């Protein structure tokens, strides 16, 4: 991982968390729409499951530590988002990727509600998670339609492009002669 990717990742997580707390959260009300989760999904859809898992785990842990519920819940859920979206990536159709991101994020929010209900935190209940899963999925899809093209554009720039083993080898081979 390059320094530029790490810095961009941290900046993206922080921005998403701040926007979630100040804009998306108050607007969404009881519906668990999650901008950071959709961001994790978008990164995973572009960069694959490896980056998605790492990004999801770090973002989730940061969100957990900044909240009142026990740490590890969002880390586990968004780890799952990164993994699933990395595996489901279509990479050709933004709509299909956005749909995949929406479904995975909605399921992750449901899983989060279940986990929180199990550990009796934040007054969460499985019932409210089930009630809000469809509206959350629709809102996540709208966010994903916006974020997936953005993630594609940013992660395909020279500075932020993921270093791939095959590319490195080709470059090294080219230099050697």
């Amino acid at each position: 991982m390059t320094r530029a990717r790490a810095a961009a990742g941290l900046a993206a997580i922080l921005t998403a968390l701040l926007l979630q707390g100040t804009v998306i959260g108050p607007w969404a009300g009881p519906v668990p729409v999650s901008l950071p989760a959709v961001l994790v999904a978008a990164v995973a859809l572009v960069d694959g499951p490896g980056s998605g898992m790492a990004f999801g785990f770090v973002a989730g842990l940061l969100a957990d530590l900044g909240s009142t519920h026990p740490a590890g819940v969002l880390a586990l859920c968004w780890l799952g988002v990164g993994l699933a979206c990395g595996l489901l990536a279509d990479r050709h159709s933004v709509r299909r990727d956005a749909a995949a991101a929406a479904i995975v994020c909605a399921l992750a929010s449901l899983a989060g509600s279940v986990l929180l209900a199990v550990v009796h935190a934040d007054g969460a209940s499985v019932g409210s998670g089930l009630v809000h899963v469809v509206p959350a999925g629709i809102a996540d899809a709208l966010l994903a339609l916006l974020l997936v093209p953005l993630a594609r554009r940013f992660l395909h720039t020279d500075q932020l492009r993921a270093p791939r083993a095959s590319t490195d080898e080709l470059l090294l081979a080219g230099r050697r002669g």
Partner: protein
Amino acid sequence: MRRLTSRQRTAAIVLAVLALCFLTLDVGGGSLRASHNGVRGTLGALYRGTDAMLGPVRRFVEGLPTAGTNKGTIGRLEHENAQLRGKLAADRAARTDQRQLTALQAAATSEGYRVLPARVIALGSADGFDWTATLNVGTDRGVRAGQSVTDGYGLVGRVLHADRSSSVVLLAADPGSGVGARDLRNGEVGLATGHGASGFTFVPLNPKAALRAGDKLVTGPSSATSFVPGLSIGTLSSVHASTDGTTTATVRPTTSPSSLDLVGVIVLDNAATTDAAGGSR
């Protein structure tokens, strides 16, 4: 659909186990409290900064769907507010009325009079007098000229004349009005002359009467006054002895003539009224 490499699979398992460890640690003993506090403090400061920047925009956008209806709501609330203020003022006035009626009732009960409650509907000069009040009761309720008027605490004046539904009261505070008065402490009788809002001047019949500041004055004996006897006029505030040997006193009135509202006309039987009216003015 992609497949995970073995390294990615291992990483996924390790991260999941790590997340579960965090969860167990935090639920079990709260050993991550310091980390929670640190991150929450940092994010809290960032949240406040971001909200200061984006909050107004968010609130503006949130208010847009109800922008049209707010005007109506504000108007309705203002109307309700005005109504409630009106009710509040009416309640306050009703409480004052109730207090005054209680005082009137108490005065009537203690002195054995019948007191007819009346509202002052006008204050000003009439019939050549400066200080008169018009009441909303008249002859059809038994009001006759010469009857005394009280506010329950002290003397207000006497009825000058009455028509069917209203009557004019000459206030005791009028400079042209003289009230036969008695000093309650030493029983000295004299004349209290009105001086408008500033009270009365009391001149005792006995020039050597020993008057003292603080003495209470009441309306005098019925043969010497047109007022019902025993109504409080005021309290002597200062006593002056002039060079010719006469003594006068300044009287602070019991009833303020400029703030009259609810009063009571003391309705006597015909003989008593005639008797009272036949006295000095």
